[in-house]
């Protein structure tokens, strides 16, 4: 288990080598170094995975401490890794998907001037994400948590010359910090409650301490959830993710779809023992999840930018995952996290391939008829879209329905959660097939000379497409490998009745098929229809197109008043009042001394007079004292 350190160290090393010496290394070698560091990391993870599987179920937990990180008296936080089925599965997903995307990046970023900087950030990201997943305590988790945020910031603003990219990066960092503010307070409260930040210590004490104090459990979990809402782009802190598409597309695939944004889901699954003592928080998680899922999907139906549509789709799918962990279906949530990593990374990389073919174009109105020119991209994207829509037989089908079936059984408003989830499924298949139909069907637009991407990009697409199908079979209802593998971590998971499972599968299949059919009817059969609908519900359309005006509202409520307060403090309060008071004191003393100065006449007679008066007063004083 010592080799776990190398899983994290290799990408760190890769990042440093490429980052510092990149100027002097050939591009091809940079690609090899970056890919190898992640690839070997993946191999070690796979090796550890096999090792763990061969162990008896109750021996699959390790806490590997490397050194004391922050020791102050009784307070101690170690630098240590926690290895269990959950973290092993996560590092497999992270390193696996990362490796594929690293490969793809070599082709996609070939012309990039700052090739080495790109790979340095990307490697650093992988290391940070692994740290987040492997940490054995909350503080180290937080370090990974903020570090992935930093990498996200760096990569969104990768093309720093563009103001929009720089703005988007900053926005992402700051919005995430708002979430992290809550997360940090949550960590403080955890220490205050349990006198430790170590997972094992906290979780083992949780039943004893939290049983009697529901309020603390609720407070802790809600604060942690605030962090998750920021990182995983849920309402109300999702606003950074659509803008994050300013970054290179492989980054969107890796960080803003497959891995980093799922950290919130992982965190809740990891701390589910605390959540179980806070039913209010669970409800909150489930509701925020399902509402975000529906809300983001509704925006996705009318946007024109492919990457943004997929970004809203990511927000929506993350909502499903939160719904899953919110109804205590932890392994279902993690299962969907995994399948989503495959098909969403695939969809983004396909979008990248389209951009690669059409000189960076992402506007749906300017793309069409690409099927003939990009056959691999077309077929793989269709697979990704089917998987996202939850089409039977694909990965998304198993994982999404798993969540919805659990939602149905939830103690609170189960049917509502389930129903909204089903409707969202219909919207999902509509918006994704809208892209497919518009981009690939019809005639090619003039002026474009589309060409299929090179092998280094299409092979990753094919790998991910295969995973987007077979990835679901680990969660096949009867065999259910993934649930059995994760079950030692999540002791209490409610059992599903197979009738509900069947019902969910059937209904969600019908709805998603309906979504696809609608998209087909709108964009193939009767292309004038969308225009007519637009006119009839112009208000709703504008609301959706402008993303419910949330960015504008935030600007009005937070950003502008903040600037005004800052200017007031700076230009008025500090200069006029506080510093004014200081300077006025100085002036006052000066003016007064001007007056007192007049006493100093310089004439001897005046001084003698004053001495005389002083002497008399003193004399009088002593005389009265004697009496």
């Amino acid at each position, binding site marked *: 288990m010592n080799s776990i350190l190398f899983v994290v160290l290799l990408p760190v090393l890769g990042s440093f080598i490429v980052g510092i010496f990149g100027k002097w290394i050939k591009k091809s070698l940079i690609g090899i170094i970056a890919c190898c560091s992640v690839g070997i990391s993946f191999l070690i993870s796979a090796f550890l995975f096999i090792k763990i599987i061969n162990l008896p179920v109750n021996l699959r937990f390790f806490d590997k401490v490397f*050194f*004391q*990180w*922050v*020791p*102050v*008296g*009784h*307070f101690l936080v170690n630098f240590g890794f926690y290895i269990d089925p959950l973290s092993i599965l996560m590092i497999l997903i992270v390193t696996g998907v990362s490796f594929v995307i690293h490969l793809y990046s070599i082709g996609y970023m070939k012309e990039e001037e700052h090739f080495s*900087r790109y790979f340095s950030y990307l490697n650093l990201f992988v290391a940070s994400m692994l740290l987040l997943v492997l940490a054995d305590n909350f*503080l180290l988790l*937080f*370090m990974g*948590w*903020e*570090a992935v945020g*930093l990498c996200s*910031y760096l990569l969104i*603003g990768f093309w*720093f*010359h*563009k*103001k929009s990219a*720089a*703005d988007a990066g*900053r926005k992402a*960092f*700051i919005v995430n*910090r*708002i979430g*992290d*503010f809550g997360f*940090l*307070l949550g960590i*403080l*409260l955890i*220490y*205050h409650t349990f006198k430790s930040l170590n997972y094992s210590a906290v979780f083992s004490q949780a039943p004893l301490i939290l049983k009697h104090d529901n309020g603390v459990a609720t407070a802790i979990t809600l604060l942690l959830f605030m962090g998750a809402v920021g990182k995983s782009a849920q309402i109300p802190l999702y606003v950074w993710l659509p803008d994050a598409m300013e970054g290179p597309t492989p980054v969107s695939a890796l960080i803003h779809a497959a891995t980093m944004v799922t950290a919130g889901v992982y965190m809740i699954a990891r701390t589910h023992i605390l959540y179980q003592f806070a039913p209010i928080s669970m409800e909150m998680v489930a509701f925020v999840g399902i509402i975000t899922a529906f809300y983001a999907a509704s925006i996705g139906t009318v946007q024109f930018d492919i990457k943004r549509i997929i970004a809203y789709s990511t927000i929506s799918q993350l909502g499903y995952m939160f719904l899953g962990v919110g109804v205590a279906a932890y392994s279902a949530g993690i299962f969907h996290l995994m399948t989503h990593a495959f098909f969403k990374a695939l969809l983004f990389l396909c979008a990248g391939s389209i951009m690669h073919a059409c000189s960076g174009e992402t506007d749906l109105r300017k793309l069409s008829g690409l099927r003939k020119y990009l056959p691999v991209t077309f077929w793989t994207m269709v697979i990704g879209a089917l998987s996202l829509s939850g089409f039977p037989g694909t990965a998304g089908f198993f994982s999404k329905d798993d969540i919805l079936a659990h939602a149905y059984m939830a103690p609170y408003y189960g049917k509502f959660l389930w129903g909204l989830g089903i409707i969202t499924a219909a919207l999902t298949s509509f918006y994704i097939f809208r892209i497919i139909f518009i981009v690939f069907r019809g005639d090619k637009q003039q002026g474009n000379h589309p060409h299929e991407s090179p092998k280094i990009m299409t092979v990753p697409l094919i790998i991910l497409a295969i995973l987007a199908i077979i990835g679901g079979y680990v969660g096949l209802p009867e065999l259910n490998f993934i649930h059995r593998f994760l079950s030692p971590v999540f002791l209490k998971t409610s059992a599903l009745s197979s009738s509900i499972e069947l019902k969910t599968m059937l209904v969600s299949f019908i709805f998603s098929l309906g979504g696809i059919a609608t998209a087909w009817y709108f964009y193939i059969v009767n292309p004038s229809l969308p225009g007519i609908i637009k006119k009839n519900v112009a208000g709703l359309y504008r609301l959706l197109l402008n993303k419910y005006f949330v960015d504008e509202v935030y600007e009005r409520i937070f950003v502008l008043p*903040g*600037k005004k*307060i*800052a*200017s007031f*403090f*700076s*230009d008025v309060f*500090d200069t006029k009042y*506080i*510093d004014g008071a*200081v300077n006025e004191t*100085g002036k006052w003393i000066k003016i007064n001394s001007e007056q007192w100065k007049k006493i100093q006449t310089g004439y001897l007679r005046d001084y003698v007079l004053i001495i005389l008066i002083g002497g008399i007063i003193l004399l009088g004083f002593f005389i009265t004292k004697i009496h």
Partner: protein
Amino acid sequence: MINNIPILSIIVFLPLLGAVLVSFIPGNKYSLIKSVSFLFSFITFLLSVFLFFVFKPSVGTFQFMQTIPWIKSIGANYSIGIDGISLFLIMLTTFLTSIAIVYSFHSIDSKLKEFMIFMLFLNTTMLGVFVSLDLLLFYLFWEAMLIPMYFLIGIWGGERRIYAAIKFFLYTMVGSVLMLAAILFIYFIHKKATGISTFDLQSLISYSTAHIPFKTKLFLFLAFALAFAIKVPIFPFHTWLPDAYTEAPIPVNLLLSGVLVKMGVYGFLRFAIPLFPEIAHNFFYPIGILAVIGIIYGAFIAYVQKDMKKLIAYSSFSQVGFIILGIFSFTNTGMTGGVLQMINHGISISALFLLVGMLQQRTGKRGINDFGGLSGSMPVFSAFLLISILSSIGLPGLNGFVGEFLILLGVFKVNIALTAIASTGIILSAIYMLWMFQKTSQGTSANENIKKIPDLSLKEILILVPMILIMFWIGLYPKPFLSRIEPSVKNLINTTTPGQFTTSVEPSFLLIHK
């Protein structure tokens, strides 16, 4: 063996010796002036590193003590010693002085000789403050420090240097005069009660905690607190800071923001709190609230600054709020975090000032709107700038986070609401710092010259690299620091917790002198 060498005295007075030597060198022999001043500051630094290794970590009380009668008639002694708190402040001082002196080789172009004399003299006075265990000696160093600082700002500063220097001088004086009055007051009532004339800190502490009435102590504490609050500064005594920081030359900025600010905090730790512990404990709310106001208020103001130096100045003001908050939490973690944060703050803020200085030297400008896209023309500069920014906004893995987290952990124990409000500082600092980064290093600049600025030279990189390494070191492995700070903090807490003064102070004090 080490006990026989007065290593502390050597460290304190070596720079002064250097200053004297430099004064004998003709003013036009630049390279000789440079090498002598650097040599003295650097040897002092090396000695302080040596001090780090011979320092016994687990001892919470004073080490390397040395007492020589100084002015016998009034009982003042030359009495010095350090604990884990002052150890790192000494190292910080010697480190930053060496860096400042190296940096001034290129940035100071007039009256180099005088500049170096003042810098070395300043170094001695700062070190003196951190080692003094005699109130009069402490006051002497505290005041003496103003002299070189006044000239350093007033002669080598920017356009409004005279205004800034006088303001800095007078403002600080107002506070210290009251402190002097308080020192004399304690001295005389102690003399009256015991017949012994002494300025010895430990004797006065044991007398003050046991015998001075509460009300009197309250006023005495306020006198000390004002002097230190101005120096830190604590809101609303901060307005000298933006002026002084903006006008001072960069090497002086390092010492001003890196060390001088810490003298205020140190004053609380070493003098105000031990002398009047129960008063200090009662001041958690007044001072804590002011500190939190400072954190938020400073952050807001920083956000709208156009001058990078001013932005950093206000950010510095905002961040010292955390330090004060940690100190006044009177918890082990909070205070240890506060002390560690003094070092962190010293390192990150100095790095930021150096970077601004390097830009200013190249272009003569330092407004955030004067630049843009520096990541393209100056990638190394931008990388260093970003790391320093991240360190100062408390990104985990870098130094600032460890300090801030420990502080918040300590304050949380005392008051949750105040912790929550203070924590918004982590959002605000990200807002203004990343704004500065975007305006300078991202985007593009309309000015063609900006696109052609040369990146950092090897020399400049070598100046910055040690600071960057320290940021990572403290962020990833702070144990060597914490294990030396914590015992002293613990000792401080034990001796100043209400109900324990009379019993625990005197025995430990007696032990040391045996």
